[in-house]
């Protein structure tokens, strides 16, 4: 491995200062499960690791706590904690399921939720260091290449898919992210956090290199049911081929509000606004679920080898909707 310097800053403010001072040489590290692999493979130029786990003043960064109107999750909370924490499993099952479906126990034991949200693409070409857009190049090799796992929505000029399992779940739950940067902090909705390649092909979210995702606020909503369903190519250790995060606010057996976001099919967690509108105020019947499935893939633009994802996504949305609605 290249020479690395590990820095344990005292505070978030100091982390940001260090990130600012070292520019692209520096990166924030949570669990390191993604970043270390990228450094070993020379995918990123990082030489200085600003280690959040070494913060002496951690505050609430590694806790899940109750807020007056929901919960606050520290960015350093591990996927393992998130998937089993009573506050999460009780009210936000979709988030617990999403966190528990990622990777393996060993990765979940150290991988943080902030790191999961900020992990880089797992497109084969990016990971094999092809000179693609994500590496500062001027093409996307998957567009006409081995694109079995690439985007069917929102692609162009890059066709990566967003790999995070927790991100779609967080969006459906109406989460907000607290971001700390050089000019203080800001809070932004999870649904505004991710960036399409056509906006800026070099990044996957709005974070500046010297900003840190510090906390996640999830509001509490009475009568909310949520779930996360994921299709994998083997039963563990792979990112979603397609996934759906679903949250329903129910009034009896009528949906008062639905929130539905796909994972693994677009460069960002892919919201299904039209489906949400279709469901609002309705009772979920077999035919409505089928219609929702069809609408979910309306406008999909599959590449040469990933047309199957359209079929899978339609069926997954329909089935997940039906089973969540039928739960008592």
């Amino acid at each position: 491995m290249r020479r690395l310097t590990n820095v344990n800053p005292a505070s978030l403010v100091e982390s940001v200062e260090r990130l600012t001072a070292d520019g692209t040489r520096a990166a924030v590290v949570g669990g390191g499960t993604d970043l270390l692999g990228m450094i070993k493979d020379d995918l990123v130029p990082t030489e200085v690791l600003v280690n959040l786990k070494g913060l002496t003043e951690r505050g609430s960064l590694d806790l899940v706590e109750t807020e007056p109107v929901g919960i606050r999750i520290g960015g350093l909370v591990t996927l393992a904690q998130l998937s089993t924490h009573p506050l999460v499993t009780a009210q936000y099952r979709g988030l617990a399921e999403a966190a528990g479906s990622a990777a393996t126990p060993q990765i979940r034991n150290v991988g943080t939720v902030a790191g999961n949200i900020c992990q880089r693409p797992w497109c084969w070409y990016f990971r094999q260091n092809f000179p693609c857009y994500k590496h500062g190049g001027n093409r996307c090799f998957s567009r006409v290449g081995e694109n079995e796992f690439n985007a069917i929505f929102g692609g162009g000029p890059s066709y990566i898919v967003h790999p995070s399992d927790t991100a779609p779940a967080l969006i459906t739950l109406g989460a907000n992210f607290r971001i700390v940067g050089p000019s203080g902090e800001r809070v932004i909705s999870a649904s505004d956090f991710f960036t399409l390649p056509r906006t800026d092909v070099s990044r996957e979210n709005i974070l500046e290199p010297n900003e840190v995702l510090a906390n996640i606020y999830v509001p509490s909503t009475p009568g909310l049911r949520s779930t996360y369903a994921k299709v994998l190519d083997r039963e563990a250790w792979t990112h979603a081929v397609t996934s759906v995060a679903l949250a329903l606010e129910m009034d009896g057996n009528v949906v008062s509000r639905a929130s539905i976001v796909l994972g693994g099919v677009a460069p960002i967690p892919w919201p299904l606004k039209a489906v949400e509108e279709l469901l609002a105020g309705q009772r979920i019947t077999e035919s409505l679920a089928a219609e929702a499935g069809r609408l979910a893939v309306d406008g999909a633009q599959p590449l040469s080898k990933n047309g199957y994802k359209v079929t899978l996504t339609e069926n997954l949305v329909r089935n997940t909707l039906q089973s969540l609605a039928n739960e008592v």
Partner: protein
Amino acid sequence: MNPVSRRAFLKSSVAVTAATTFPRTRLSAAGQEPDGVPPAAPQTTISLRVNSERHTLEVEDRWTLVELLRDHLQLTGTKVGCDRGECGACTVHLDGMPVYSCSQLAVWADGREVTTVEGLADGVHLDPLQQAFIDGDGPQCGFCTSGQLMSAKAVVMTNPNPTEDEVRQGMAGNICRCSNYNRYVAAVMSRPPQQASRLDPLATVGVSHPRIDARERVTGLAQYTGDVAVPDMLYARVIRSPHPHARITRIDTTHALEMPGVHVVLTRQQCDVTWSSGDSHNPRYLFNNPVRFVGDPVAAVAAIDRHTAEAALKVIDVDYEPLDFVLDHEEALLSGIVEVQPGGNLSPRRDGERLPEIYQRGDLDVGFAASDVIVEETYVSKHHNNAQMEPRSAVAQWTGDQLTLWSPTQGISNTRRDMARDLDIPPERVRVICQYMGGGFGNKNQNQDSDLIAAVLAREAGRPVKLELTRKEDFLGVHGRWPTTQHYKIGASRDGTLQALQLRGYSGMGPHRKSSGGIAGIELFRCPNVRREVSPVYTNMTVAANFRGPAYPQGVWGIESVMDQLAHELAIDPLDFHLHNLTREYNDETPYTSWSLRECITEGADRFDWANRWRQPNGRTDRVARGVGMAIGMFAARLGRSSAVLRLEQNHLWLHIGVTDIGTATKTAMAQIAAEAMDMNLTDVTVVWGDTDQCPYSVGESGSRTTTHTGHAIIQAAEDLKRQIAALNGALGDRPLIAQATPEPTIEGMARYASAAHFVEIEVDTELGGIAVMQYLAMHESGRIINPLTAESQIKGGVTMGIGMALHEELVYDRATGVPVNPGYYGAKVMTHLDAPEIEVHFIEPIDTFGPYSAKNVGEPPVIPVVAAIGNAVFNATGRRIKELPMTRTRVVEALA
């Protein structure tokens, strides 16, 4: 014999930097740098507890936790299989929780508590899980075992009575490429193994015994090649071609050689050693120009530590002139396509003719004329990797002109022979040691280029050299199973009798052909008119060669799919179709020494309740479609030369055999045979193995031959020993007696084969494209089973590996650039605990006196019928056939569309 293999060792002298000896660890090297030592990398003092012992040390910030444990604290029980969080071999506990120590920096463990496999036992008292792994035959090769143990331990620490599902979930992050998942789970569940021999067991043979070296494998004490450290050792790394085909126009090593800590840089210019077992037709140098596949070695470096070696690679400038390339084996034979090797892309036959390998009997025209139904179909299988858990590695040390090589080989005798030949030195100057090795499945049969590279670097450096391939290098630079395209045309008469059988097949060998390239399976059927024509073809994909059951799993998938289709078109139950058309004699002419294929099918079908479960496929579109499938397989159980030496001293027997035990429990089986032959207890036998200086020739653990070849040698040596004892008339005393034997048994005019019939039930999720194996039954005849416990593990593992081949694995290439895009466990989607179903295993045990105590073989047969059985079950469930591997969701959805 390859004429180019006997070359001068080196063409010209090699660039060598100051040959002084440097201190190996530089924990105190900050500040003033001694000449030739790289400037210190950033360091931090940390304090942590490892297995309850407190350490305060200075570590480089870039060291991973596993690097600290293995390289600096000598705790080598924790293994590295991928260094990327993709395999689980490096699992340790950090503050009581399992983590991948390859994906954590050592500095992050500051103030924390680390537990490794070495910390599980309490002195001599094993952890109950370690004992359960021994009794339940958890480890095969053992390379994944410490990781499995640490995950299992975490499960029972939080939940002393877990359900089976909880165990699998907790161990989901630990791959076992030997695929002993059933055994590991059962051991954690404290479910004792059941298997027993059907024949009356003899005193020791036929009785289930835990492996005699299981304790070493569960405590982390077993020493694998990567665990070997010798004083003054340098670390090597290899630069590999990023191009599928290119001429190297310039290599500039100046900057690398100027780097402090770099000792040797080798390129083709200084080294024209050939790797003769790397190609049996064309010269294959350690460093080739042109380079012919992505991963072809270009240069190698030996430096003071692994980081310096890696840094040196980055400053070696190589200019490539890219050449046209071809990936597809059928396209490679078209005219106007680039020649991968001089003379054309059809690899020559043994006799040098550039013609396909042809087997023929009868007359196809006659056969097709007599056929009422003819099926013509094409099947396409892919390159996939052996992916053994232990990446290729080597440690080479010269003492004068004597080479000692530690290498994870499947045959120390062959490796010694090959090393001597390639280095042009007499075999007695080469010592090969392989005590434990982490699997190979056919890609560690001979010596490897990595063995030679380490040896040449060490000779030039005047210091020992360790070379460890990365997981990616192992996927690209070693070899995998050859991809095939199989065109079949098969005819049968209305009564279901085969009349004509034609295969035209192509195998993609990459740019070098080591061996075979065959497509086997049609010989499983009786048919008067047969023609098989197979073309092994050079391409610019990575090299392909032996992988478990080499020519069979893909060939049997093709032929068994077509047979299943034929049975379907004739409206005959595939079981009846098989029984009607089975081989009775090898190629319909050579009798078998014993033949149980029919019994395998009938007994397997009874146990599986085939008669009540098989239905004509109805093409229904249920959300979940269930189906059953069956397929058969055979594998040669050869006899041949091998040696054994027995030494009896003070009532204890020492058995010297040149085996390495690749995870098959060979050592245990050999000890059982020796104990049986000598009428002794197994505990009175000590096996001396894995070292050419202490062991006679053994055939090598490939081709499933060791039990028969070396087993015979042991029995014969024992007979001699017993004669010597008898001659002493009870006056044995303390005098040591020695006997040795090197029999070379043959079978004239007969064929000797192990056989198998597999039955599977699957579910196809027609909406999400998934295939799930619900029940798997493997019926095998492998002669007498020497050790039912470990033999069953072999079958379970082979079947599970076959399921991975059927459903997941493929090395995918970008067609435009010729670069593979998914090397590694993550991309190959190797089976995990959550994917592996329970495999039910039964043995038929005939008496076949040609084998030692009637034994045949168990290593390769279990993988053979698997892909075919699953493919046929998919057809039975859905009425559709998937004709290209692997059967991924994409292909299921396409097939159902």
